[in-house]
């Protein structure tokens, strides 16, 4: 694999601040050996669909160690949803981000290997994407916060270990689409992705969110491999649902806003 941090290591040797490495080359051209190394990785090709029943079950079996204050807030949200008044945590169509994509998505994902990188692609909330760098680089000293954070990974046998930081504090730790709270900052997620069976992928997650969790939350999610055409990943532009097809004043095809209510097209 690419160990692209030559400048990084050089600066360490010189005793310079690590941040200096941010100005050096970090993406070096892959060599034939880097492509050949991919063939030795486990086969994670195909499309992966989540076990939704297990997602729901784990809310009970792997209870989230919320802080007492947040636990009361979560209980109130659960009561509101049960009463038929769900919070629309994601109806603004911003990405679910980390860790909620992995926790609650009902849609398929795919996993691509390339030299020094593992890439997760998904559907439904805006062509969701995670870049996991496996070339030996570290996290930036001060990553710009993002919905999916900065992820680095390494292989322990056939298990991909992923470390994610730099997630926006507004990004939600969700139990479902109506129950969850923002992580409030300093989120750290460690995942161990591995095949439990030839066509069953497991993501063992350890979620550290010191402002809303009183302890690391350990839970797992299960995905099933599919290879039929109907499981190909669909483009998923969430905001598209807020528009219908129309024609503009010049006669061109255009998007026309549709009134929304609670994330639905508003009944007339």
């Amino acid at each position, binding site marked *: 694999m690419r160990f692209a941090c030559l400048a990084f290591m050089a600066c360490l040797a010189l005793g310079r601040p690590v941040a200096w490495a941010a100005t050096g080359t970090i993406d070096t051209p892959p060599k034939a050996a880097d492509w050949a190394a991919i063939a030795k990785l486990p086969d994670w090709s195909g499309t992966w669909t989540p076990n939704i029943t297990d997602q729901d079950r784990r809310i009970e079996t792997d209870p989230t160690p919320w802080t007492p204050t947040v636990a009361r807030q979560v209980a109130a949200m659960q009561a509101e949803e*049960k009463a038929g*008044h769900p919070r629309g945590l994601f109806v603004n169509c911003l990405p679910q981000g980390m860790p909620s994509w992995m926790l609650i998505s009902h849609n398929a994902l795919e996993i691509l290997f390339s030299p020094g990188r593992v890439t997760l692609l998904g559907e439904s909330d805006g062509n969701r994407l995670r870049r996991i760098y496996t070339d030996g680089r570290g996290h930036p000293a001060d990553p710009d916060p993002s919905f999916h954070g900065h992820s680095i990974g390494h292989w322990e046998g056939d298990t991909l270990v992923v470390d994610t930081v730099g997630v926006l504090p507004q990004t939600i730790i969700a139990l479902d689409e109506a129950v969850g709270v923002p992580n409030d900052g300093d989120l750290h997620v460690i995942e161990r992705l591995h095949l439990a069976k030839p066509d069953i992928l497991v993501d063992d997650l350890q979620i550290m969110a010191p402002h809303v969790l009183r302890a690391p939350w350990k839970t797992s999610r299960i995905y099933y491999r599919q290879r039929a055409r109907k499981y190909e990943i669909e483009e998923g532009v969430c905001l598209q*649902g807020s528009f219908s097809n129309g024609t503009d004043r010049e006669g061109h095809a255009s998007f026309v806003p549709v009134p929304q209510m609670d994330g639905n097209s508003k009944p007339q």
Partner: protein
Amino acid sequence: MAGLLVGISSYVSPCPAHHSFAMFDPAKTVTVIGTVKDFQWVNPHVVLWVYAPTKDGGAPELWTIELTSPGNLTRVGWTRHSVTPGDKVSVDIAPLRNGAHGGGFKKLTLTESGKVLTSEFKDQERPGLQ
């Protein structure tokens, strides 16, 4: 509400894509019988609009019916052409709890062909599906 049948059914999982479906009452079933106005095949939720006639002969009422995502519907056999404007349909929905003319999709029958479409995909929780 004419053109409609109201009943109670067992729980049907709605499988939402980006929001909870708790605003719909899954314990109830309203059957909307009418003509398709539009079928919007987009993320995050496919939407079906159906005009249902009223018993008193007034203007047909427009019902707005939410389904899951195109990807998930594709996996249970739908295409963007499964329903087209003008189709006569009978649609079972979990009605909005607030009484507005809308609901979460349960089942659709195309009147002309008798073809039945559902969106249940929880029985797909296994690998290697065709």
